[in-house]
């Protein structure tokens, strides 16, 4: 659900959802900035507002009174960036390259603003690895092996990363998107909208699957692996270890976010020759080392020696955890600017890492 904002575009009232409003405000703010020294600024902005209002009208009807964020994005893209006309004959050449984007929206993307897509063709699961490979200009096999290795090392945490990427990153649907697999700059707001939509779809799919599973269980009895008998000490121990582990997890996340956003862990600045990704990696490994005895103790407290967590329960535990995590990220990126920052910086961080790895590989050869 989104709040609706009423706006006045050159004398016409329109209702936008909150994200659309932000996009539009940003666009018009930039327009005013570009025209700061233009004596006709007010008039041009009024004309722009009128043009936007006309375009909004296209999307509205008797049963649709709110212009959505996606529609606003489309309108703003149609309008194109506002730029003052070249001052003289020489001005035309000076920023000719910058104009390529305006005159021709399909101009080839610059390398620096490649965009992360999932690429379904050649994908094994959801195209995350193929997309990452295209984005980092690496071989898919290397990315897959790295992912599998990371999954083993982190006891599955990398799988969570995979699922998060699956949710957050759009699929390269059209041929243009696939060819670009990195056209426009990474846009946090779009990502957030997409997660909202996708999570609804996934919830539906999971519910279907759960119902199917339940029918199967009713027919064939419960899955093998009898329900676990919790030891008497479990009731006492579980919350303590659980709380400690949760607290450590939160601390690690806070440190990681501070590291990625500011390049410093709380107030401690990194030495200049240590890249941020390396510090992040060290932080993650340290967290794993600190947390592993607690995890082991928790395991022992929960299950009697020798007992194995039943497969189905472990699976649904993991699914619940993933959904919770995806939801928490979506919520946080909607409300906390730090998290939005963090998510936007992540691709850059991974690219740094990939670049360093590639350098290492090429030098080794």
């Amino acid at each position: 659900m989104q709040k609706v904002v009423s706006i006045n575009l050159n004398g016409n009232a329109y209702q936008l959802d909150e994200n659309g409003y932000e996009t539009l405000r940003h666009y018009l703010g930039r327009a005013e900035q570009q025209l700061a020294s233009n004596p006709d600024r007010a008039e041009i902005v009024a004309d722009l507002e009128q043009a936007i209002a006309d375009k909004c009208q296209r999307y509205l009807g008797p049963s649709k009174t709110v212009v959505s964020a996606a529609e606003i994005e489309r309108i703003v893209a149609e309008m194109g960036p506002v730029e003052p006309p070249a001052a003289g004959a020489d001005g035309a050449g000076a920023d000719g390259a910058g104009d390529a984007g305006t005159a021709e929206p399909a101009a080839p993307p610059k390398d620096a603003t490649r965009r992360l897509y999932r690429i379904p063709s050649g994908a094994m699961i959801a195209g995350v690895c193929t997309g990452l490979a295209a984005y980092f200009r690496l071989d898919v096999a290397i990315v897959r092996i790295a992912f599998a290795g990371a999954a083993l090392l982190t006891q599955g945490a990398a799988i969570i990363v995979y699922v998060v990427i699956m949710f957050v990153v759009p699929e390269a649907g059209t041929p243009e998107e696939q060819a670009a697999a990195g056209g426009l700059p990474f846009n946090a707001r779009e990502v957030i909208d997409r997660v909202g939509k996708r999570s609804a779809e996934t919830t539906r799919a999971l519910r279907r699957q759960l119902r199917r599973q339940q029918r199967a269980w009713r027919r064939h009895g419960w899955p093998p692996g009898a329900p676990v008998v919790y030891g008497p000490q479990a009731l006492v121990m579980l919350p303590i270890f659980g709380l400690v582990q949760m607290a450590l997890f939160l601390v690690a996340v806070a440190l990681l976010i501070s590291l990625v956003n500011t390049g410093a862990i709380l107030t401690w600045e990194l030495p200049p020759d240590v890249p941020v990704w390396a510090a992040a990696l060290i932080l993650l490994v340290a967290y794993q080392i600190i947390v592993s005895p607690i995890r082991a103790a928790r395991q022992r407290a929960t299950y009697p020696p020798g007992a194995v967590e039943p497969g189905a329960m472990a699976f649904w535990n993991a699914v619940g955890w993933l959904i919770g995590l995806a939801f928490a990220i979506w919520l946080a990126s909607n409300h906390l600017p730090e998290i939005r920052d963090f998510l936007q910086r992540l691709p850059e961080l991974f690219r740094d890492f990939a670049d360093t790895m590639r350098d290492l590989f090429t030098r080794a050869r």
Partner: protein
Amino acid sequence: MPPEGKFAAIRKGLLEYLILKIVAANKVYAADILKRLSTTDFATQEGTLYPLLSKMRRDGLLDYEWQESDAGPPRKYYELTAKGRSQLAELNEYWRDLNAVIGQLGK
């Protein structure tokens, strides 16, 4: 094919000339100009056109008048001023000369 940037520079330099031509042929409003350009290599967006129109009006090349439209609010219809017409004539002539020069070079 030369780099995209060079074409973009040429297009940008010629845009004002094309607008003069379009406005000279018909009394138009901004959306008409965009529509007329959209099928050409000179496809332009509002963000570029509006500031340019306002500059051309300040330079005294064109002027507009408000006209009621049957759908929606009144629109600004642009037409050339005397100065705009004489500049268009100059540009036409320059363009012909330029074409002749380009055609003769390298022969």
